[in-house]
């Protein structure tokens, strides 16, 4: 028990404050003996602490304070009075503390006992529960919860009857609960509890009522024992017992055969009359001796059972008198024969003393006198009623078996120890394509498929050796025509009464068709998998409960798993709860029978954003309801990127065409302005103020001409003076100007590969591009310190090289890269960066034509210019210029 848990935090400071307060009051006021009273209160406070030690600590503190207080208080007076006061106070303190501590001790041990009880109750490995007077659960043991599969919170407060099976509930309400109320106790009541998962368990319940002080029941404690296993064992025992009885019955049936042995007794009788007389009485047969007038000379004791008469009483009586007219007439012919000197045997029936019809078997044996004449005869009569009945039952049973065997839809056979057929039914013959005679001649193992022979032989041996009672399996057989037959086979031993194996009994069901369908399905699924795996799309089948039933390889890759790891899972488990919710409307729509198409964005396992084009196609069953849907998802990330790029290039091309058109027309308009104003300038006298005016017109027209020239660089038509140039030397020449345009705060790093090669192009224009890119980089660093990296090398560009841009043909290119670590650009700026007059600088600071003319020049050279940038980290421009064919160098 944790003391700290029960210690109220305010108790300690309260006790301390009280002690100090009393102490100071004691010092200031001469309280005398009354001063002890507050200390007693202090001791009482100890009760509230969880441990009785606190009482002693407080009493000790009070003792010390009392002593000190009295010594230093200003009361003065007679010393013995002071002593007496002090003594009385201490007496009061300890007189309180000791009984209080004793009481506390009792309380503590009660609490501990309660705690132990609670622990015992919860932890006992037995199902325990407590009910209140209304039959509601107020407590259950952990074991109870474990067996029933509930959490404690789910059961407390519920009625116990809710956990019983219907029958047990009725019994509880009608008999058990009233009995418990009346007697206060019940024991081993068989109940059935229903577990949370619906499983029913058999239990025995014992309960006792707890009474309150007024003798009224207020709570019951029940001990519940799970006897499901025991019941199961009993059931098994009962079954075993039934089997045993069956065996006994079979043995009995065999014994009936023993009766026939009795017939041999006839000769024994003839041999010795004495022995006959002795034995006759003990035989379970009727034995009589009659004279030739059909009067009784002897009858054994069985007579009493047959005719209800003492054997002695019939001596001398005529057979007709004893047997009655009916039986007498039945036996008349036999009597005539026996009197003729021949033994005769016959059977018949008659009702016995209790009226039951009895069958009998009679033998009449003539008795010869000394001279050989017939003097009378013996009659030996068996009751064969039981034998007849057994024979009939056996006949019927055999008939049933034979017809079952003969007409069964399964192939059946009896097989001997060597594995040869003893008997086969027509169905088996039909299945295997043999006649009955053929089958009875072959070795059974020869009709088993070669690949299954080994296992079949092993199973058969284990069966005969008693290692297994039966074998159930699917096995391949070889038909007479060589075809394979798949048989679902069960084979078991038939044993005699001594448990010795008689023969094996096998049944075979032809499952070839099923197997073929299974194989075809497997093949079909395999084909589907091969096809779907080779399609560059994510393909899946999802059932109406939103679980995957099929996914192809690519679908698995997308989610970083193998297809078999995904199949069976819920969609939300695979794609995540967030995406699952986002596309739920589409799933709902497809499950209502619509074909759904939508675009979607997902993040793959590498964290890349993937654009998808998804189509959901509903799958209808025969009744027209949707049982699932196919999901066909295509990755359109690349297409999106290409479309985006094409759109941007189309826009730039359109802008270029427009700029070119405007420039061309502007040039026509500028021609008279420039030419005529220059001519006019020459005409004006030197002192004329108009001369300065005209000079401004000339200057403006020249500026306009330059501007138009730069627009034309971006647009469709600046004249390139193209020749084979060494691109490294060309770029190197441009970099000679670097010190004049790069401030000292920017540190350039230059790596130019002299073997880059030759480009067929305009050296001046390419240098313009280099300068524009460097100026742009310097601007991006906004006067701060920074790094400028310029590199040039030859690279191979593939057909799908995203970085180089989709419009480039595959081939070898010179790549010029200009990178800065300046402010960088966001996607909005990147979108427009090559457009003419687009600038991030303030109006007047830049023309906004530098990058667009670079774009125009590089495009005209059949190259490509790309930019990658991260805001705050910098930008990198890459220029790709097609390298000349090597032969162009010579």
């Amino acid at each position, binding site marked *: 028990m944790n003391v700290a848990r029960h210690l109220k935090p305010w108790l300690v400071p309260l006790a301390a404050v009280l002690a100090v307060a009393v102490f100071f009051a004691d010092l200031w006021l001469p309280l005398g003996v009354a001063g002890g009273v507050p200390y007693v209160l202090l001791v009482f406070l100890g009760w509230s602490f969880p441990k009785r030690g606190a009482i002693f600590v407080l009493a000790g503190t009070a003792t010390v304070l009392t002593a000190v207080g009295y010594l230093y208080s200003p009361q003065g007076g007679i010393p013995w009075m002071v002593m007496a006061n002090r003594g009385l106070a201490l007496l009061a303190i300890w007189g309180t503390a000791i009984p209080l501590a004793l009481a506390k001790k009792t309380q503590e041990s009660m609490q501990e006992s309660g705690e132990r009880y609670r622990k015992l109750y919860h932890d006992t490995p037995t199902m325990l529960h407590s009910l209140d007077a209304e039959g509601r659960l107020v407590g259950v043991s952990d074991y109870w919860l474990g067996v029933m599969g509930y959490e404690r919170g789910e059961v407390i407060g519920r009625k116990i009857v809710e956990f019983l099976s219907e029958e047990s509930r009725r019994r509880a309400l009608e008999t058990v609960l009233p009995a418990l109320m009346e007697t206060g106790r019940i024991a081993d009541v068989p109940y059935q509890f229903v577990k949370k998962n619906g499983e029913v368990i058999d239990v025995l319940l014992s309960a006792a009522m707890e009474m309150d002080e007024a003798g009224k029941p207020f709570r019951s404690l029940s001990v519940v024992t799970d006897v499901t296993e025991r019941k199961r064992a009993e059931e098994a025992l009962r079954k075993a017992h039934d089997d045993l009885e069956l065996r006994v019955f079979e043995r009995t049936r065999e014994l009936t055969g023993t009766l026939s042995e009795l017939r041999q007794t006839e000769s024994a009788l003839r041999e010795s009359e004495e022995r006959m007389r002795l034995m006759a009485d003990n035989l379970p047969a009727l034995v009589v001796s009659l004279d030739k007038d059909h009067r009784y000379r002897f009858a054994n004791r069985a007579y009493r059972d047959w005719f209800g008469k003492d054997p002695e009483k019939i001596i001398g009586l005529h057979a007709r008198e004893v047997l009655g007219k009916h039986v007498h007439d039945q036996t008349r012919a036999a009597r005539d024969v026996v009197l003729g000197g021949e033994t005769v045997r016959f059977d018949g029936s008659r009702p016995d003393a209790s009226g039951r019809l009895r069958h009998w078997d009679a033998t009449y044996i003539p008795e010869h006198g000394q001279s050989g004449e017939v003097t009378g005869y013996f009659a030996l009569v068996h009751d064969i009623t039981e034998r007849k009945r057994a024979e009939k039952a056996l006949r019927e049973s055999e008939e049933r078996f034979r017809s079952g065997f003969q007409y069964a839809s399964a192939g059946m056979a009896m097989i001997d120890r060597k594995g040869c057929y003893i008997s086969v039914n027509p169905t088996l013959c039909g299945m295997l394509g043999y006649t009955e005679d053929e089958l009875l001649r072959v070795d059974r193992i020869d009709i088993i498929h070669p690949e299954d022979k080994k296992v079949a032989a092993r199973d058969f041996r284990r069966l005969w050796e008693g290692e297994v009672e039966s074998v159930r399996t699917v096995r391949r057989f070889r038909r007479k025509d060589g075809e394979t037959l798949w048989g679902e086979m069960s084979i078991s031993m038939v044993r005699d009464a001594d448990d010795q194996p008689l023969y094996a009994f096998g049944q075979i069901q032809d499952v070839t068709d099923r197997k073929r369908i299974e194989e075809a399905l497997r093949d079909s699924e395999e084909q589907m998998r091969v096809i779907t795996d080779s399609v560059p799309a994510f393909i899946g089948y999802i059932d109406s409960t939103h679980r995957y039933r099929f996914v192809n390889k690519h679908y698995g890759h997308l989610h970083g798993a193998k297809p078999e790891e995904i199949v069976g899972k819920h969609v939300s488990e695979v794609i995540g709860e967030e995406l699952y919710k986002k596309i739920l409307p589409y799933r709902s729509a497809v499950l209502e029978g619509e074909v759904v198409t939508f675009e979607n964005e997902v993040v793959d396992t590498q964290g890349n954003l993937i654009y998808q084009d998804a189509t959901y196609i509903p799958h209808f069953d025969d009744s027209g309801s949707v049982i699932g849907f196919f999901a066909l998802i295509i990755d359109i990330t690349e297409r999106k990127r290409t479309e985006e790029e094409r759109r941007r290039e189309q826009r730039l091309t359109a802008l270029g065409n427009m700029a070119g058109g405007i*420039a061309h027309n502007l040039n026509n308009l*500028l*021609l008279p302005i420039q030419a005529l104003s220059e001519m006019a300038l020459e005409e004006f006298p030197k002192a004329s103020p108009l001369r300065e005016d005209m000079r401004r017109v000339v200057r403006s027209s020249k500026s306009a*001409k330059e501007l138009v020239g730069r627009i034309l660089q971006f647009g469709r*038509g*600046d004249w390139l003076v193209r020749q084979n140039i060494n691109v490294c030397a060309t770029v190197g020449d441009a970099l000679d100007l670097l010190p004049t345009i790069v401030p000292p705060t920017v540190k350039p790093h230059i790596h130019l590969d002299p073997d880059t090669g030759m480009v067929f192009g305009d050296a001046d224009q390419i240098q313009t591009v280099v300068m524009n890119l460097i100026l742009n980089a310097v601007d991006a660093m906004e006067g701060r310190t920074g790094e400028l990296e310029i590199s040039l090398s030859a690279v191979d560009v593939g057909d799908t090289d995203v970085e180089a841009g989709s419009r480039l043909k595959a081939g070898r290119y010179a790549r010029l890269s200009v990178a800065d670590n300046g402010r960088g650009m966001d996607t909005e700026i990147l979108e427009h960066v090559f457009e003419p007059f687009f600038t991030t600088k303030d109006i007047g600071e830049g023309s906004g034509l530098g990058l667009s003319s670079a774009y125009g020049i590089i495009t005209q050279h059949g190259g490509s210019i790309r930019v990658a940038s991260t805001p705050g980290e910098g930008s990198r421009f890459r220029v790709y210029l097609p390298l000349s064919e090597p032969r162009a160098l010579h």
Partner: protein
Amino acid sequence: MARILIIDDEENVRYVLRRILDTAGHEVLEAADGGQGIEISKSEELDLVITDIFMPEVEGLETLREIRKIHPDQKIMVISGGGKSGYLDVLDAAVLLGATEQIAKPFSPSELLAKVDHCLAPG
């Protein structure tokens, strides 16, 4: 003092050329399109033909080729509307077809006259 034929569909351009060349003392003939220019070149003795490249109907290159057929030694200067020297392919073609000189709009009178002088120089 030379006889110079100007072929340009833009009246404005013809005016400027005439003004510059008049001032320099040359005799100027004008044609508003290529067809007209070819006709004039058949009947007139000319020192120089200055033709625009982009014109409706018979355009500059064709004009150049036709006049070359008639007068293989005729000196011809082509003008283009491009920033520096006009369109790459067209000007390349013009040079291949035997244009003596080329000039891009706009230009100053001195530039034009320098190129005209270059064309008229013997040899």
